């Protein structure tokens, strides 16, 4: 039956008395429930879920080198998520991070390939700036059409992902193909100067990530711009009545959003792959949407969630080898966690009363 039938047994009302701690508790329970539901799925695959989860942890944190691997996975996720968070806060649904990473990597690679003899600090700086601008401009295209004519940014940003991907494919198989690669479609590796050096065993991108978490936390929370972004997210009209330059705020924050993703692309291409490849983004742009959402758009929470998701990815590769569980299982797990956490928001925002009447009581009696 429709609403009416249900309302007799269960009544729902909005509540705003939930403490932060209690809300986080509910979310935590949701993640546990997702793990439990996924355990059933693993059982269904005739594997032992406890064993699988244990190896997942072992694969992610078992040895120092695995921990380093998890951190390397987490770096681009954190930076990309911080970027997505800026857009999401404004309710600009930027799902184009994947493409912005790719274009940032492309712009950085242009300088990395053409100026191999430049001193390392200068070259890396130029590559980083190129990545920031490349990703930022790629995001600015949909941002522009959103601000001026209200074009749907969700689809726009997504389509640009495919185009960015095809663009790199074009370069890799065409003009940028390395003639020395014995016919393999590969783009030339950067010179040593174009590769981010390691600090404490992990490429220095982690330092950038840590700094950015702090900066973005302050930016979103304590600056005028951060405040304007959240006001526009709540209501564009309110922002306009308050005298904000809505278009300018949209454009600049979309640029920042894409710029961070582009920087993540530069860090990936220089610190990890050391050459531009089609796999430079490798789904990070999509995973980061999840981490952004689960981190409730808050920088510190995003950092934590990103590390956990990186562990999931890193550990997922391990269980794939150890249990022959396909990589897609990790994707299912991600989806499950999302479903449960999304569902749990309901219990944070609404109160449910179960009326003890069974059938014949009328609505007014409650």
């Amino acid at each position: 039956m429709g609403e009416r039938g249900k309302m007799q047994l269960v009544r729902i009302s909005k509540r705003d008395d939930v403490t932060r701690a209690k809300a986080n508790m509910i979310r935590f329970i949701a993640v546990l429930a997702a793990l439990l539901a996924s355990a059933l799925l693993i059982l269904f695959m005739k594997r032992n879920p406890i064993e699988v989860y244990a190896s997942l942890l072992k694969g992610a944190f078992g040895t120092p080198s695995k921990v380093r691997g998890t951190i390397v996975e987490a770096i681009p996720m954190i930076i990309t998520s911080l970027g997505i968070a800026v857009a999401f806060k404004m309710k600009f649904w930027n799902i184009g991070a994947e493409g912005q990473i790719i274009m940032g990597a492309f712009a950085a690679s242009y300088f990395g390939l053409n100026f191999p003899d430049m001193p390392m600090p200068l070259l890396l700086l130029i590559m980083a700036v190129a990545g920031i601008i490349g990703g930022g401009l790629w995001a600015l295209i949909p941002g522009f059409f959103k601000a001026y004519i209200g074009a749907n940014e969700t689809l726009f940003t997504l389509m640009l992902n495919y185009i960015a991907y095809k663009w790199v494919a074009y370069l890799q198989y065409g003009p940028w193909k390395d003639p020395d690669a014995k016919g393999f479609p590969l783009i030339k590796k950067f010179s040593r100067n174009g590769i981010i050096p390691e600090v404490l065993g992990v490429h220095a991108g982690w330092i950038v990530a840590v700094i950015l978490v702090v900066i973005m936390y302050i930016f979103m929370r304590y600056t005028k711009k951060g405040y304007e972004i959240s006001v526009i997210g709540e209501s564009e009209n309110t922002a306009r009545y308050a005298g904000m330059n809505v278009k300018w705020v949209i454009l600049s924050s979309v640029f920042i959003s894409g710029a961070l993703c582009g920087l993540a692309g530069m860090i990936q291409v220089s610190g990890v792959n050391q050459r531009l490849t089609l796999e430079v983004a490798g789904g990070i742009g999509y995973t980061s949407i999840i981490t952004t959402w689960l981190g409730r758009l808050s920088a510190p929470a995003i950092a934590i969630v990103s590390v956990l998701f990186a562990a999931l990815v890193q550990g997922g590769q391990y269980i794939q080898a150890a249990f022959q569980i396909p990589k897609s299982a990790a994707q299912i797990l991600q989806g499950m966690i999302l479903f449960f956490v999304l569902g749990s928001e309901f219990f944070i925002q609404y109160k449910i009363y179960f009326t003890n009447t069974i059938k014949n009581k009328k609505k007014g009696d409650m």
Partner: protein
Amino acid sequence: MESGLVLFLTQVIRAGTPLLFATLGETITERAGNTNLGVEGMMLMGAVIGFKVGLATSNPALAILGAIAAGVLGSLIYAFLTVTLRANQVVSGLSLTIFGTGFAGFVGKEIASKPVPASIKSFFAPVKIPIIGDIPFIGPILFNQDVFIYAGYILIIASGIYLYKTRLGLNLRAVGENPGAADAAGVKVSLNKYVHILMGGALCGLGGAYMSLVYVGAWKENITAGKGWIAVALVIFATWNPYKVIAGSYFFGGLDIIGFRLQKFNISISQNIIDMLPYTATIVVLIIALRKSKENAPPQALGNAYFREER
């Protein structure tokens, strides 16, 4: 008779058919006030389950039913989250796509590169419709196709009639435009949303099944290659009107295969650049479909959860 153009247009119809099903499905879903961004995920689920059932049973009807069930299952998760639990529609849809992609990759692991059984292949072979199939030009293009494509024509017309000419269709439109008013008039809002989200899921599942069972004739990872997303954009292009879904779907079907045709003419454009065409065209659609007239506007309550107590 079979000139090059006729052959090309025949293939355009085939290439556009997965889009037609998915776009129609999303149109119906959005008419109920819900944007389901899980189309890609549901198509993949339908594609893999339809193919798996087909492979196991060699029965085309069961394969189709399997695909429908998979699409419905996916959309049921979405409906429960967004209608019952009032979760954010954008994120719920994205999650469904992530889940569906993983699900399809997982289930499809052992069936990759296996060909479709002969019984199913022959069931979905082109059949000429008597009399109208003989009309020059139009006949071979439109009426010498497989049953799946004919089902598409019928579904489009049926949806158009349902939406614009029936009481139930009126209720549906009311729910999408103004759920509060619909509720006050005695229309069951949640039930309506559920039914039409599930219908949308079923159609997306079918669109996916066309890819694996007929169009490609095999399962491969990420077989839909973004078609689900293009379908979401086509809904805007078709201004939430089932009849206009036809034009959009076939146009994009054409873009999908035009690169292949261009190669024949020795046009030296990289395949990768040509592959950008459908995506670029989708963006163009997003921009030009914005001419705001009342008739072409999206359902007014699109994207908002309905909560009676907040009315």
